[in-house]
């Protein structure tokens, strides 16, 4: 057996691949071979570490040194200095601050400090294309344990004890859902993995599938065993080619070992798994629409009941869970439900993966224990607001989530607390906004998305969102009235209460929460015809501050519509009615004499 003294882990996730990870991998292989180190140093492509903006990420073991933004040109230096001579390369380390200018290890980096990785435990740590690495980390032990020493009912009990709830948005208790499907009669049952991930900006499910596909497969098998299903589907959007590729490989490898197929581990349990590529419409992530899409029908929600547990795919009892939900299951069975339930709050157990984006210093994927505060996520993990601007709001839960404010920063994150505030956990999108974000504009942005994605089946969702959007447009253009605010609120309640599926029921959330927490901003647009954040172009006024102006004329020369008359003696003035608010003068003025308000 060959022993490798050092392992070089190179992130091969979607983010790092797009910033050049493949070249880095090639360069390492070449350089190690050239220096005859290839017999003692192993190159391992991994999945996403969640820090894609700093990619390509390279981690060198046994020291565990964490390198960022590595290019193929840096590789000879890492090999010569670190791997050969044992001198880690400072300049490629994560940049710290103060007396810790370079942070060599995961544990030192604040971004990882408060994270607790369960669903992402193997992501970035193992080679997702090598089933043996998954097995080396204890993979498929839970399956073996369940098949050989647990009854299906015991598996369900363990999941119930864990308190695990659906990570796809609804937050329904997973063990309870499984027990419904287990209780349904009939010979044939299905389990489905929902990997549609339609939220723009979300990529947690993609990262799990790319970085640790076997954890999802093993989770589905445990569910199938517990509920008596023998066939499963993974419904993955076609825009995730790498995830689909890794899943296919993982399924083939598991079949090769006989871990998928008939009579698994010589038991009476058999399981076959298929991948279905989806077209990627947001509404196809809704479970009944998703099943319709697998059956080859148009992806449109249908009323429930009947629930999938009784009549799902092709009319058979079916259980559908989200990628992250499934990925938690093997560890719950291995370590016990109590272990999982020891993390989190009273009703929200375990951890949740969030995609942290927007105006924070460090964006990326973070897995944190439930009950952590928004402040810890935004300031400790995210490093605070970009360019030291002022925090304004965080939009949580994807396009149908809500906007929370400064006063909610210390709320512990749980399904209950977020719902109480009018937001939702959703699938885990977390967009941070600063003082430059206009909340009316934000509400409009998210509503535009859900409005476009409405499948059109029910009138409140189809027409209601359209009217709401028109009203928002009117307000951002300064043409709104105070009555419009009441109409907007009424429409929002109607759409929320009368739509068939979750899309319509939650689409008004961004509007309702901004009306609730940022009403004065709406009023400023309506009464003062002013956008306090300076984001709504139609309401912007550019003016030259005469006492600062040096009369250089640069703004006048650059204005594309020539609306800044004047000369070197008498000075310059912007003709507001002709101004198209392009902002050119504002950018060009060398003296900061132009005010935008």
């Amino acid at each position: 057996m060959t022993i490798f003294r050092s392992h070089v882990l190179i992130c091969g996730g979607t983010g790092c691949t797009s910033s050049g990870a493949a070249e880095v991998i090639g360069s390492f292989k070449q350089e190690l071979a050239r220096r005859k180190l290839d017999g003692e140093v192993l190159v391992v492509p991994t999945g996403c570490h969640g820090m894609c903006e700093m990619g390509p990420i390279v981690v060198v073991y046994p020291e565990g040194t964490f390198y960022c933004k590595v290019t193929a040109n840096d590789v000879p230096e890492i090999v010569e200095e670190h791997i050969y001579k044992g001198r880690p390369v400072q300049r490629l380390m994560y940049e710290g601050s103060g007396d810790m200018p370079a942070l060599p290890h995961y544990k030192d980096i604040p971004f990882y400090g408060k994270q607790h990785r369960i669903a992402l435990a193997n992501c970035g740590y193992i080679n997702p294309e090598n089933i043996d690495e998954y097995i080396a980390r204890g993979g498929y032990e839970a399956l073996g344990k369940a098949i050989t020493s647990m009854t299906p009912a015991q598996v369900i009990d363990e999941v119930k004890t864990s308190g695990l709830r659906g990570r796809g948005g609804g937050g329904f208790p997973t063990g309870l859902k499984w027990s419904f499907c287990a209780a349904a009669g009939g010979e044939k049952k299905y389990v489905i993995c929902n990997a549609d991930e339609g939220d723009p900006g979300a990529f947690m499910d993609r990262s799990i599938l790319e970085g640790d596909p076997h954890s999802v497969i093993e989770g589905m098998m445990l569910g199938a065993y517990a509920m008596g299903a023998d066939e499963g589907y993974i419904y993955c959007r076609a825009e995730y080619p790498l995830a689909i590729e890794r899943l296919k490989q993982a399924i083939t490898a598991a079949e090769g070992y006989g871990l998928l197929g008939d009579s698994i581990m010589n038991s009476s349990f058999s399981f076959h798994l298929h991948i279905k590529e989806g077209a990627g419409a947001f509404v196809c992530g809704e479970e009944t629409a998703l099943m319709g899409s697998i059956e080859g029908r148009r992806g449109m929600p249908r009323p429930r009941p009947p629930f999938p547990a009784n009549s799902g795919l092709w009319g058979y009892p079916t259980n559908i869970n989200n990628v992250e939900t499934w990925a938690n299951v093997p560890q719950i069975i291995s370590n016990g439900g109590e272990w999982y339930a020891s993390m989190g709050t009273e009703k929200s157990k375990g951890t949740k993966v969030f995609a942290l984006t927007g105006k924070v210093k460090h964006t990326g994927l973070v897995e944190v224990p439930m009950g952590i505060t928004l402040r810890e996520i935004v300031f400790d993990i995210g490093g605070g607001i970009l360019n030291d601007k002022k925090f304004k709001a965080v939009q949580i839960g994807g396009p149908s989530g809500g906007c929370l404010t400064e006063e909610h920063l210390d709320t512990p994150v749980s399904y209950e607390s977020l719902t109480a505030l009018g937001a939702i956990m959703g699938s885990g999108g977390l967009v941070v906004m600063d003082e430059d974000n206009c909340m009316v504009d934000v509400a409009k942005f998210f509503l535009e998305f859900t409005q476009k994605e409405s499948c059109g089946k029910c009138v409140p969702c189809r027409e209601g969102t359209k009217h709401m959007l028109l009203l928002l447009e009117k307000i951002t253009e300064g043409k709104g009235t105070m009555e419009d605010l009441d109409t907007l609120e009424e429409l929002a309640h109607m759409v929320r209460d009368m739509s068939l599926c979750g899309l319509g029921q939650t689409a008004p959330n961004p509007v309702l929460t901004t009306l609730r927490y940022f009403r004065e901003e709406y009023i400023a647009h309506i009464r003062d015809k002013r956008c306090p954040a300076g984001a709504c172009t139609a309401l912007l006024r550019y003016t030259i501050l005469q006492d600062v102006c040096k009369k250089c004329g640069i703004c006048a020369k650059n204005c594309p519509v020539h609306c800044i008359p004047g000369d070197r003696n008498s000075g310059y003035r912007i003709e507001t009615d002709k101004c198209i608010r392009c902002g050119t003068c504002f950018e060009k003025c060398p003296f900061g004499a132009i005010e935008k308000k």
Partner: protein
Amino acid sequence: MEQKKITSLDDLRKIRENSKDLSSARSGGGTTVIVGMGTCGIAAGAREILNEVMSELARRNLDDIAVQTTGCIGMCQDEPLLDVIRSGQRVTYGRVKPEDVPTIIAEHVVNGRVVEKLAIGRAD
């Protein structure tokens, strides 16, 4: 070759055991061996020492030992240097020859007995 099937939990554990080295280098290992690979270390033959460490570990199937290299630590006159960190104690061996490596590994790394005649420094 017909692919091996996993037909029992024991089969699975065998694969896990055989694949242990795939993740052990990443877990930091129980005991650490460090070879000084500064300029004078390499001049004094540190590369051969490192090679010998690797082949001895392979011969003995010791896959949970972390092997690191390090730069100059200011004891150039005693190169090649080899450190063993075991149970929190760090022992430095100096003027190590390739033929000393199996002894250090058998005595110290495996059995925890410091090879006194080669040890030149100690730190807790």
